[in-house]
Every structure is written in C-alpha cells, then in structure tokens.
C-alpha cells in the first residue's frame, strides 16, 4: 500500500501543470470562456499531441493504457486551472462508453479518431424528469427495419454543442425506471430529427437540451447488447465521478490558495485580515475539507478498478458525498472571505465557486450520494 506517484505519473503531473500555467491564466480563461466555442481547438490539438486524449484507452487501439490514477492526476491539475476543453465528455464518458461496450468495428471507427483529436463526443443520459437517476429513461428506441427510431428529450448534455457524435441512452423495453431495457446508441449530432437548444452553463462550459424526433439510426449504432446497457453506464459514470472528484480537489486547492493569499494582502483595521482568528479558523476548515477530499479522491481512483461492484459503488458514493459537501463549503467560503471582491465577475475566485457549484451537482449531489452510500452500506 502506498499513496506516492511513480516517476511516469510525476512526469504526467508536471506536464499538465505546465499546460495549465502556460494557457490558463485567469485572464486567458475568462477570454476563452467567452468565445462562441467556449474552449480552444488549438488546446485540443495540443492535448492530442501530448497523448492525453488516449490516456485511458488500451494500447491495442493506440491508447496509453492508463488507469484511473492517471486520469485523476490529469483532472486534478486541470481543475486547478478550470480547464474548459471537453476532456471528460469526450474521453472519459463518450470514449469510455465506446471502449467498454462497443464492438470491434465501433471501437476502431471512434477511439483512434478521439485519440487523434479529430472527433468529439458527448453523453446524453439525463432527462427532464430523471434528476440524478441513470435508470430513469423515457427516451424510446423502437426497432424499425434493420435499425431503430429514437424519440425523446435529453437534458443538460454537457458539450452536446460541439460533439460530433452523441451517445444516447434510450429505452428499448421495460418501464421508465427499470434498470433493464436500457440501450446505448451512437447518434450523429447532425442527424435528421435531432434538434438542439445550445446554452452556456454557469461554470463557463457549454451544454444543450436535445430533442430527438423520429431519429433513424442503423443497427450498427447500437452500442453493446440491446437492453443491457445499465451496468455499463453505471461503471463509466463511476469513472466520470472519480475524475470529477479529482477535478474538484484541484479547484478547491486553487481556490484555497487564492483566498489564503488574499487574507495575507488585504488590510483592514490596520492589519492583514489573515491575522484575525475567526478568519484563520475558517481558512483552516477550508483547508481541512480540501485535504479530506484529496484523500477520498486518491482512494476512489485506486478502488475504481475493483471487481467487486458493490465496493466500487460504495467508494464512489462516499467520495462524491465528501467532495460535494467540501466543494460547496470551500466555494462559498472563498467568496465570503474575499468580501465584496469575491462578488466581482472579473476576479478569479467567483469562477472557482461556480465550477465547484456545478461539480457538486453533476452525476448526483451530496444528498444523493449519502443516500446511495447508506443503501449500499446497510
């Protein structure tokens, strides 16, 4: 048992740190977030060149063969700079689903393109009524000839705006909340019958609500076995949650550093406000929450590949619950300790607060994961 990084992992960490330092100053990030696209295709190309877009994929398909630990290292460091490129949507979620459930032809058609930086993906799982339940799927896929016809409404699809292909969860059988009967389809974003409402999310990213109206797909669009997608979705979402936990740790540590520096600089009553014990103790509590979250993020990265699915789910639920409550506390208190300055959109701390706020809700908020953990642990 140990928690230390190997030499290769340290190199990866250094390399992501450098990328963030070179490209993600607060000003550069604000500018990028305000563009039409919301991120940089040049950065994306650079990430492909560095091999990052192949990080979790097996070496046979041209990937790096990394584990969840490497993904966590990458996400933690990206989190510290609030990186905007759709790494999670394309590589971890979309790529993860294809690699996990796809047949040889599907993997060959998609994964090398992702690794090269030529194809972006998004995962459309949520629906207006589903809240955080991955099994709550009303979107339907009806057999028609050799293929299927899809109908339904997918909600808040992160990076559905720019994805070339969207992985859609749809029901091929069963009741709307059954775990069985859910299937995955690879849908071209420009297919007939796909209509999107694109928008900005408060964390500077892009998302879309997507309506599917009689969208026709071939049999080759079905990812994995018909009706048996739920365990695959759950597994890949667990990987995404672990990645988000790491991102949140990086964002919390950065927010804490910014706030801590501010406490040393800002003077009131003739002294730096960091000399006031009430603010010192608040800052210590923020630091402790980030530390506890870092431990849980490391833990879940190491436990993600467990064969025992219940143990894996427990680890993921516990980690997201801890990270969620910490993200809320650190984000909100960072604003508080900055006083009026924390309220200005021009200053960086508010952007950390906003990303931490969405990280808390993505893939299930704190209450959801506490409940999930309780159900698994009883």
């Amino acid at each position, binding site marked *: 048992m140990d928690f230390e990084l190997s030499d290769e992992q340290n190199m990866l960490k250094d390399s992501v740190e450098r990328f963030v330092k070179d490209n993600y100053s607060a000003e550069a990030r604000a500018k990028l977030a305000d563009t039409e696209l919301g991120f940089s295709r040049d950065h994306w190309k650079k990430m492909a060149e560095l091999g990052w877009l192949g990080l979790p994929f097996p070496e046979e398909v041209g990937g790096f063969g990394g584990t969840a630990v490497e993904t966590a290292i990458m996400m933690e460091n990206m989190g510290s700079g609030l990186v905007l490129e759709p790494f999670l949507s394309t590589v971890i979620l979309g790529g993860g689903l294809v690699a996990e459930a796809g047949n040889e032809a599907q993997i060959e058609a998609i994964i090398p393109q992702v690794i090269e930086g030529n194809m972006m993906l998004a995962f459309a799982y949520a629906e207006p009524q589903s809240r955080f339940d991955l099994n709550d799927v009303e979107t339907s896929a009806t057999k028609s000839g050799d293929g299927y016809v899809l109908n339904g409404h997918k909600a808040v699809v992160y990076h559905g705006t720019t994805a070339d292909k969207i992985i859609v969860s749809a029901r091929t059988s069963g009741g709307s909340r059954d775990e069985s009967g859910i299937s995955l389809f690879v849908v071209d974003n420009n297919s007939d019958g796909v209509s999107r409402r694109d928008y900005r999310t408060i964390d500077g990213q892009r998302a879309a609500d997507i309506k599917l109206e009689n969208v026709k797909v071939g049999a080759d669009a079905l990812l994995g076995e018909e009706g048996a997608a739920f365990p695959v979705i759950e597994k890949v979402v667990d990987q995404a949650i672990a990645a988000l936990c790491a991102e949140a740790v990086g964002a919390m540590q950065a927010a804490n550093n910014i706030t801590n520096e501010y406490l040393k600089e800002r003077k009131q009553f003739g002294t730096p406000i960091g000399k006031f014990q009430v603010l010192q103790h608040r800052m210590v509590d923020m630091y402790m929450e980030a*530390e506890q*979250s870092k431990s849980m993020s490391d833990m879940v990265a190491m436990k993600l590949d467990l064969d025992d699915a219940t143990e894996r789910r427990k680890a993921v639920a516990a980690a997201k619950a801890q990270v969620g409550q910490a993200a809320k506390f650190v984000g909100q208190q960072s604003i508080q300790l900055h006083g009026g300055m924390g309220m200005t959109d021009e200053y960086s701390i508010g952007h950390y607060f906003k990303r931490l706020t969405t990280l808390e809700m993505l893939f299930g908020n704190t209450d959801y994961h506490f409940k999930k953990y309780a159900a698994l*642990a009883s």
Partner: protein
Amino acid sequence: MDLSFSKEDLAFRDEVREFLATSLPADVKDRCDRGLHPTKEGQVRWQKILNEKGWMAPNWPVEYGGTGWTFTQKYIASQEFGHASAPIATPFGVSMVGPVIYTFGNQEQKDKYLPRILNSDDWWCQGYSEPGSGSDLASLQTKAVRDGDDYIVNGQKIWTSYAQYADMIFCLVRTDSSVKQQEGISFLLIDMKTPGITVKPITVIDKEHSLNEVFFEDVRVPVANRIGEENKGWTYAKFLLGNERTGIARVARSKRQVERLKEIAKTELSGGRPLAEDTDFNNKLTRIEVDLMALEYTELRYLSMIASGKQLSAEPSLLKIKGSEIQQRLTGLLVESLGMYGAPYEAERAYEGRNEAPVGPDYAHGPMAEHLYLRASTIYGGSNEIQRNIVSKMVLGL
C-alpha cells in the same frame, strides 16, 4: 499509488487476528468495547502480554525494542486491534515519554527507563498542565531550583490522567524565570514516591476518577533525572506533543463504534421498526461514516508521505481535530440510539457491594460513560482551537 496488501501483509494480518483471538483477555476486551476506563490491573496484564509478543512499541526504532513494522503493517495492526476492541497501550509511557527518552535522553536514562516502559513495570503520567496554564502551556509556573545534585520542585500540576496509578511522572518545570517563557523550561522525570508529592482526585463529569491534581512541595529530584539540557525542555515538550497528535485520530476505534451503532440499531425500535430503518438516524450515521472514511485515508496518505521520506509540518493537527470531532459525534449518536436508557447512568463505584447489573439492556452500559468522558477529546492534547491556530500558522502561514 496502490491500496492492495502484499501476500506478506495478508499473512501478517492473519497473525495479528490469531494473536488477538487467543491472547486478549475477555474482561479487558469487554471494558474496551464498552468504552469504559481500563483498570490498572487489567491494562498492565494486557500490556505484559503485548510485550511478551514483542508488540508493545510499534513506533519505536528496532534498536530500542520497536517492531520494525512498515506503515502498512502498523495500519493493519491498528485496524485489527480496533476491530477486536483490544486496548492500545496507555500512551504516557510508550507513546509520550518513551520517544523523548530515546531521542533526547542519555544512555543511562535509556537503559534505566525504556525496558521498564516496554514491560509496563512503571506506570507513567504526564505533568504538563497547571491551574494557570492550559492552552498557554509555556506560562507554567512549577519551579525547579538547583541545590547541589538535585532540583527542588515546588508547584502544582492538574488534569493528570491516572496519576493515582502512576510510578513516574514526566514534568515540565520552570528553571529560569528571567528569560522568554519558552526558554526557561526543563523536562524532569520524577518518581511519584518522592516525599512531598500529593495526589488529589478530581471527579470527572462521568463520575469516575481518572483525573488528578498533583502537588509538589520541596520535592527533591536528582539532576540526573533531567532530559537533555537545562532550559531546553520546551523543545522536548513540543516533540512529544507532535507525536501525540498522530495517534490521537483513533480511526480504528471509531470504526468499531460504527459497528456497535449498527448492532444496537438493529435491536432498538423507533416507531415500532428497527432504528436501523429510521431515515434521520441513518442520515447522521452515514455522514459520520463518510467523514471517518475520509479521515482514515488522510491518515494513510500522511503516513505514506512520512514513509517515503517527506516532511510534514502541522498537517497531523487535522487528524486530531477531525478524529476527536468524529469520536464525539459517534458517542453522541450511541447515546441517542439508546433512547431513554441513555439516562440511567451511574459510575461503576456505585455498583460496588450491590448485587445487580446496570439498568437497561446490556449494550446500554458504556455509551454514556464514554460520551461524557470524550467531551475531553476536543480539549486534551492541545484543544481543537489551538490545533487550528497551529495549522493556520505552520501550514497556511497566516
């Protein structure tokens, strides 16, 4: 990064389990599981068994009698001890003064005291706090004045745990009042049988006698009993407090408390259904469980950093803060789980000469005692407020 245990680690775990299953006396285990104070006789009996096995001092260097365990093995042992409700050794000798002696003491002191600590021949107590010096420890007033080969000690210590059992006390005393407070303190080892020492009991809110006042009136202590240099005692004291904070998280014990809570919640009823099915109760328990898991991995992460040669500053203060808060939340919830049977608690003394068991179900005997006593956990070892000051200064630079 890797959480798996090696084959050797798993064999070690089996060995610890086997040892605890066969060697831990049932009466000692029962008191520990309930959260009652140990008896001196039971604790010493158990510690001698530990020493015979060679496991009395896992944190000591091998040359002084340590086990040479890796940090993974120490983790495994502490988990197994916690799960089996095997008491850890009383800290005052083996965890507090022992490391001070082998780090700063002379050869004679090491030869004299270390084997007696390992074999529990001396029961040690800690002479730090004074009536006027709690969190502000460096302001202590107990004086030691040089007289030939002796110091003459006058003053008073307070909150001294188990002084009534103690053979020896390690004491911070003022040897120079003319300099900055921290620079005039010395560290003395004092035989409790020395004339002029009086121990007075303090009855604690759990109605038990675990704390004391210790008075010193013209107590003669040989200069040979001083650790290190005169007036350098503060350095040794801080070293000791730093050591104290790492063990204080008590993660394994808290994990056992979670198990106990789940056992009790299966039996106790709420609304005619097992308490274990009560949403509010579960919500509280789950939040503690997750916090405890985070604390466990934080402790492991820090131990891993230390094992790989990294220097920590005041990070272990976090373990003390979070660990004590969790202990209090757990004993609070244990008491809550008992419903009305949380109330009828009496000190053990009250049962002497009576031929009856404590009121209520068997598992109700213990939680209130521990709940009351553990209010001290956020106060002792440097209060949690002082710990936050330390982190603020040492880690955050505020």
